[in-house]
């Protein structure tokens, strides 16, 4: 009797240990998802130009665009500037506000890149828009466009690219 119990006991112990380890390892969720705001959130913010109570979160590139915008572009592409009055009303044709989605959402990133780099006259637009290709880096120009897209009202929708639909999370 005794040895039989011993063997059975050992088997039961071993089994329960294995089962518990298996259970435990099965318990953990595969791929715990971190709340995005918790760690990364946003790099900077910009108040919505049309509604100051709304805050738009900016990523890294957009916030670099914000810096470029407030140094170089704000003077003609906004109605209020850090120095007070805006130059926008002095110009004909009137330059678009940077958050003017109605106007700018229609233009592709490539077109905006070209007009900033080469200036208005190179694209058959007003020569009052000077070329910034030798003053700003390509990265800065891309960032400024990303900022435009972020603050656009109505919101900017990225054009759907051709090709197979990208796989979602399995």
């Amino acid at each position, binding site marked *: 009797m005794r040895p039989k119990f011993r063997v059975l006991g050992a088997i039961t112990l071993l089994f329960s240990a294995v089962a518990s380890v298996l259970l435990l390892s099965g318990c953990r969720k595969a791929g715990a998802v971190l709340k995005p705001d918790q760690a990364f959130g946003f790099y900077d913010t910009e108040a919505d130009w049309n509604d100051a109570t709304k805050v738009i979160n900016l990523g890294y590139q957009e916030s670099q665009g914000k810096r470029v915008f407030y140094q170089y572009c704000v003077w003609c592409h906004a109605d209020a500037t850090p120095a007070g009055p805006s130059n926008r009303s002095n110009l004909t044709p009137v330059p678009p506000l940077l958050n003017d989605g109605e106007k700018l959402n229609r233009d592709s990133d490539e077109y905006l890149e070209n007009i900033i780099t080469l200036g208005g006259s190179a694209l058959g637009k007003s020569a009052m828009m000077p070329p910034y290709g030798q*003053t700003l880096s390509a990265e800065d120009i891309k960032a400024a466009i990303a900022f435009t897209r972020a603050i656009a009202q109505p919101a900017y929708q990225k054009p759907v690219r051709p090709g197979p639909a990208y796989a979602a999370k399995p």
Partner: protein
Amino acid sequence: MPAEAQQMGKLSPRLRLTFAVATVVCVLALAISPVKDYRAEWKHYKRWFVKYAQGRPDTKRLLADYSPSIDQVWLPGMNVTDRCTTCHQGITQSSLADSTVPQPFRAHPPVPHNVRQWGCTLCHRGQGLATEVPEAHETTLAWEQPILPARFLQASCGSCHQADLIETPQLARGRELLVHLNCQGCHKLSNLNRAALGPDLSSVGYKVTREWIYKWLKEPRTVVDKDGNATVNGYENESEPRMPKFRLTDDEIKELSGFLSVQKAKPIERYKISPLVVAAWTRNPDLLAQGELRFRQMMCTTCHSLAVTRAGESKMIGGDIGTELTKVGSKVNEEWLIAWLWNPKSYLEHSNMPRYGWSDEDLYKVSQYIMNKLTDSDLLTNVPQLGAPTEAEISAGKRLFAEKGCAGCHALNGIAPQKDFGPDLTALGAKNASELEFSKAKIQHDLVSYIQAKLQDPVSVNPAARMPQYNWEPADLDAVTTALLSQTGPAATSTLQRLVVPRKEASFQPVGAFAQVYERYKCYACHRFNGFGGTLAPDLSYEGSRAQRKWIADFLKNPQTIRPTLILRMPQFNMSDQDAEIAAEYLSLAVQNSEVNPQSVDARQFTPAMVSLGQQLYEVKYQCQSCHTIGGTGGYVGPNLNNAGNWLTPAWIEAWLRNPQALRPDSIEPRRNFTDEEVRALTAYLMTLRAGITPQTTKSAANRPVLTQGAGR
């Protein structure tokens, strides 16, 4: 024997079963390890990435470096072993930059430091070695360094870049605030400029009353209620007083105000305004209006702010270099004010206030305006009658002055600031949560929450805190937090130490006769010379290459706004001809840029044909009028060019047209592809613009603009 052997080989059925079960159990137990391994979190992301890449057109490129094992960036010299790329597999794939790409596969935005050379944790913090999501990103019991939230990320730039970068405006603002608020008065901090101190109080008894000191200590900052009524001295805005609120009892305030009101180390150097002037003006009903006019004409508001009510809304106008003056008439006594305006240095050696050239008439008018108009009769109504302080109050006040750390910001005869009054913060940004004291504060136990709670309410995390109460705009709170997080102490390894970009100590000490002019008018309070000085007004490091000597002298005597949008303007110092000549001579000869060669352009060779071509280029081809004004029309962005021919040197214009950023890196004027002919034509045209806003002959009284009226010396 055979029977025995047979007996031995034959197991009982029960034992057989036992063996069978044990074998299965053993096999299962052995299987645990591979199963666990297969189910590891990082492998899940590895498999997901393969599936994700296969669903995209650029599969081949995305999976070019794929390996099913753990990836890591190992940089022993920098103490970096980052396994983040095990899950963040698309981090260097430019085609995955789009925000529709699911995390953790999204590409890193383009930054100057790439992942392969720098790793991840140097900037983002977190645990580089961990391969599980919470351990890598959050604070756990074993790992104390969580990921730095993105909005404070510039702190990591600041750990190595001790000099400010244009890409990190938030960090720069935070450092500026640490200097502006003189946090170094009590705390040890590294890589900051020397702070501007609060006023020396050695003779404050001559300046203000005990009652005013009482009020100031009780409520140094102003609260504007929802109707816009300012209830105390000062206004809640960016030009708030730098003095924070200390938690003092009424008795302590009485003692401190008593002690300060008897500080009379050095008598005022009284200035006596001619009795004739006083007699002529004292009964003039126009006195205060005239005083206000002069106050405005001299542009006191370039440095000092005033609260004004416009359309029922109270707001501040003016600069924040000097103190706010809305109620200063109820603060200082008249004798002190006149002596101060006459010669600020006689009262305060370290003051940034320039010494104006006053006529008795102006001094009387302006001082009467300040004493009678910039007042608030209710200012001291809630202050008890204090009378002369007793000996006991004075000695208690003296003790409090040292105990509360007043000496950290204010010099006072005989009281030396205590060394290391507040904690050393040079390594605050590298602290783990377990090293911090949270007391009973109901906040998350991490470094960022701790710093923000401490800044907003020092006693919330430490009931015995001596730190005073500050009042932060949300953006400023984040900026200061970022700057404090960047104080991470000495570099962890010698490789990192070599990568540190040190902060340059700038200074500018002119020599000769100009040194006195420079000190008297405090040019450096607003202007910058070779990296030293204020940022309010244009950088004058190359002024000698830019402006013509005669123009500089004329401008100093009668400053005008060159940039149409500027509200703040250079004050009217009533500078003497001699001082203006000394300054013009020094600036035109000593501060030049080697990029600008005065011999490169000969203005005598400009022809009318060049001028007309230049005008055509200006108006039609390049449409410079979109930013610059000539003759009353044009844009507000660049400087007014009405008087360019008298103002700028031809060599500067030419060099500027070729490459503005070579002369001034932060200039917003874009660099264009002008041909040599176009540059010369534009220069020729601009040199003809002499329709001056600066009078040609300032000595002729008839030509003097209204602004200098009554400024006789």
